[in-house]
C-alpha cells in the first residue's frame, strides 16, 4: 500500500471511530434519560448543565401527564409517571411515582 493510500485508510478508520463514539455516547445518554427522565438523569445533568449534584432518583415528584386517560401510565419510583383522567378517573400519585388510579 502506498503512503498516500495508507494515510487515507487511517483517516477513514478515524472517521468511523468518531461515528462509533458519537453513537455510543448517544446510547449512554438515551438509556440514562429514558430510565430516569431528563430532569433527574445524572448523565443528562452533567452533559446539559454540568450540575455537580444531580437529584437522586425517587426525589422527584410525579411529572405525570395523563389528562385524559388515567389508569395507564404507572411509573416506577424516580421515573416520570402517568396520571389520572378520563377513563380511570383522577388518580393520586405518590411522590416519585406516577399517578394513576381509577374510578
Amino acid at each position, binding site marked *: 500500500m502506498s503512503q498516500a493510500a495508507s494515510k*487515507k485508510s487511517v*483517516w477513514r478508520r478515524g*472517521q468511523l471511530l*468518531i*461515528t462509533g463514539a*458519537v*453513537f455510543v*455516547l*448517544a*446510547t449512554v*445518554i*438515551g*438509556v440514562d*434519560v*429514558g*430510565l430516569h*427522565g*431528563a*430532569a433527574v438523569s445524572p448523565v443528562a445533568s452533567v452533559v446539559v448543565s454540568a450540575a455537580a449534584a444531580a437529584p437522586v432518583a425517587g426525589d422527584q415528584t*410525579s*411529572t*405525570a*401527564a*395523563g*389528562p*385524559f*386517560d*388515567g*389508569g*395507564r*401510565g*404507572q*411509573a*416506577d419510583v424516580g*421515573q*416520570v*409517571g*402517568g*396520571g389520572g*383522567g*378520563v*377513563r380511570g378517573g*383522577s388518580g393520586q400519585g405518590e411522590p416519585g411515582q*406516577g399517578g*394513576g388510579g381509577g374510578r
Partner: protein
Amino acid sequence: MSRSPGSDRTLASFWVGAVVAAALSLVGAPLPLPLDAGLLAHVAGMLAGYLSAVMVVLMSRAPLLERHVGSDVLTRWHSKGGRLFLILVCVHAGAALGAWAQTRQENLVTALVAVLGLPGLLAATLGTLLFFAIAGVSIRAARRRVSHEAWHGVHLLTYVAISLSFIHELAGPNLAGHPALQVAWTLMHVYALALVVRFRLLLPLENAWRHRLRVEAVVPEAPGVVSVIMSGRHLDELGAEPGQFFRWRFLSSGLWRTAHPFSLSAPRHGDFLRITVKALGGGSTRIQTLTPGTRVFAEGPSGAMTARRRTRGSVLLIAGGVGITPMRAMFETLEMTGGALTLIYRTSRPQDVIFRSELEHLARLRGAEVLWLIGPSSSPELQMTGQNLLRLVPDLAERDVYLCASPAMSAALRAGLAEAGLPLRHLHEEAFTF
C-alpha cells in the same frame, strides 16, 4: 420523475415506524378499545412525537440518505411531514383538552388552565408555539420575503421546540411506567440528534481539517454570475460526482453563519473544485466579492442526480439559466459509449449565457451537441412543449433526461417531456427553491 429504489425502501421503513408508534399509543388501553377523543389524542400524540424525530433524521445529511434518496426528495418529505406534524399536534392538543373537559365536567378555559399546570405541559405548549412560528416563516409566501439566512436561523429553533416537547412525550401515559419503551423512545430522539451532530457538525469540521479548502479565485462569468475556484488537499477522498452539490460555508464576514448549497460546475481537477453562483439573494451576492484565501467549510457531497441514475445509452441534458452548473460538469464526464449526448441550454437573454466557450469546446471534443434556446418565453418555438422538444431531439423518448432549471421551467418541461413520450422514470432532476 425517477425515484431511486432507496427512496422507496426508506419511505417504507418510516411507515413501519409510524405503525409501531401508533401501536404504542394503545399500550395499557382498556379493552374493548373505546373509540373516543382520548384515544384520538393518544394516537395523534405518539405519531407527532415519532414524526418530530423523523423530521430531524430527514435533515441530518446522513450520507446514506443523501446518496440513495436525494436531497430534494428528503426536503420534499420534510416539507410534507412538517405540515402533517402540525396537524397531528393540533389534533392531539384539541382532543386531549376536549376529553379532559368532558370527563371533569369543566369548561374549556378551566380545562386549559388545569392542563397547562401539569408538569411538562407548559414547555410542550411553548414548543408547539415555536413549531408554528417556524412553520410561519417556512410557508411559501413568507419565504419569498425572508432571506435564506433569517429563515435558517429561525429553523434552528426546531431543536429547541423538540427539546421542550420531549419531557411531555416521556411523561405521557403511553410511555410512563414502561422503562423499556421510555428508553426506546428516548433512543429514537437521541439517535436522530446524533445523526445531526455527526453529519452536520463534526463531519464539516473534519473535512475542513482534512481538505483545507480555500478560495483560490473568483472569476466573473456573466453579469451577476461568478465562478469560485477553490483549492484543497486530498479532494479525491470527497468522492464528489458531477451533478452533486455541497453546502458551502465561506468563513468571511456576513457568510460564515449559513451554508449555501451550490453544485459543482466542473468535475474535480486535481486539487481544485469550482462552483458557479448567480447573485439571487444576500448570501449569493456577498459570494461575488469573496477574496482569495478565504477558508471554506464544505458539507457534502449531496444529491443523487448523477450518472448512477442512468440506464440508457443516450442522454439529454436540459439546463435553464444558472441551472447549467451541474449540467456543465456532467457534460464533461458522462460516458458516451455508443450513445448520443445533447445539451439544451435555455436562457432569456444572450448575456445570461455562461460557459459558452467551454461548452462549445467540450461539444467538439466529445462529439456531443449543444442546442442554445435563447429568447423570451413568449416565443412559441422556445416553449417547452412536447412538439418543440421532439423537433429538437427526435429520439428523446429513448434517452435518459437530466434536468436542472427553475421550478416553473421544470414544471413545463415535465409536462412537455411526458407529452413527447418520455417515461418519467427516465427523468432525473433535483430542484431547490433555496
